[in-house]
């Protein structure tokens, strides 16, 4: 075999490598990468199904009453009228007549300015204000009951003014919460 033939073979080999093999290796590696991604995703999807079944078993163990209680603690809306009715019902138990109910939704962000701003709260909240007149012992019992209620009521302000015959006037603000679903 002459040198020219050898060189021709080498040139042909290099040409085949450059034209067919080299570009295809790039395509093959990206296809392999894509295949790996699909396999991983498929595994994740299959795991989701298994995990879902495990969680569903646990989820179904939660009783209807507990779910109802959780909905009461953190409802999906403020339910202002219902809340007012519930507070009024507790007040009636102490012979208290509540007047001037109002509510003001609070901002979801925390902080006074951009500089002090913190991540927004993961829930919605509103301040419920109401006023009433009652003797101190009735007020104390009423507030105790509200603090222990299933619907979370965080006291935000309390104002008391004494009036005649041991009857005081009160203005109370509670913060309550809900989570939009």
């Amino acid at each position, binding site marked *: *075999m*002459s040198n020219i*033939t*050898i*060189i021709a*073979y*080498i040139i*042909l*080999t290099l040409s*085949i*490598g450059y034209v*067919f*093999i080299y570009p*295809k*290796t790039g*395509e*093959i590696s990206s*296809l*392999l990468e*894509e*295949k790996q991604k*699909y*396999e991983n*995703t*498929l595994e994740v*999807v*299959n795991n*989701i*199904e298994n995990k*879902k079944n495990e*969680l*569903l078993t646990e*989820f179904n163990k939660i009783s209807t009453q507990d779910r109802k209680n*959780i909905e009461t*603690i*953190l409802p999906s809306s403020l339910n202002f009228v219902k809340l007012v009715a519930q507070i009024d019902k507790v007040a009636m138990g102490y012979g208290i007549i509540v007047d001037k109910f109002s509510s003001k939704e609070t901002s979801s962000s925390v902080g006074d300015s951009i500089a002090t701003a913190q991540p927004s709260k*993961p*829930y919605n909240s509103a*301040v419920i204000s109401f006023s009433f007149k009652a003797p101190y012992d009735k007020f*104390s019992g009423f*507030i*105790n009951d509200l*603090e222990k209620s299933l619907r*979370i009521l*965080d*006291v*935000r*302000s*309390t*104002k*008391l*003014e*004494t009036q005649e015959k041991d009857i005081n006037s009160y203005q109370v*603000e509670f913060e309550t*919460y809900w*989570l939009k*679903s």
Partner: protein
Amino acid sequence: MAPNFQSSFIPKEPITEEVFKKKKAGIFGVLAVSLFATSIVVSVGIFFYKGVLENEIKNLQSQLAESEKNIDKKTINEMSQFSKKLETIKLIVAKHQVISNLLDSLASSTVSSVYFTSFDYRGLEKNLSIDLKGKAQSYTAVALQENAFAQNEDFKSASFSNLNLDEKGLVSFDLKVSVDPKIFIYE
């Protein structure tokens, strides 16, 4: 007759021997041909392998689409919302604030010769303090009250101001009490 006379035209030794003799390829020739052959085999192999990979990817795509279709998104979403709700409840319950502890502490630290006519607590403000107005039977009673508050660990400080003797002989006063935030924690 000459002794070297050749009667035949056929030469005694073949004169074409060198002409038709195959040339050996040599090691470089063999290597070049092998590389060439390998490059062709590899090219064809890659071509088919690419086709196989593309088919496998198509199969995986259809499997994935099928699996996604079978996922019960409604149940997962319901459980996810429930979980989020529980986490939020934990957060809210952990910072649940009450005032009854403060009222009890205030009542237990109030001396019998003093009573309060006004109580104002604003937890929405940064400094947790209460503003009180009260009346005492005497200045000594006010001093006793100051001492009682000083001994109460729930109160960080208590500052009296505007002490006045009214027409009934009672000492009226204003009081600002700085409160330990722990007292508002629900237990």
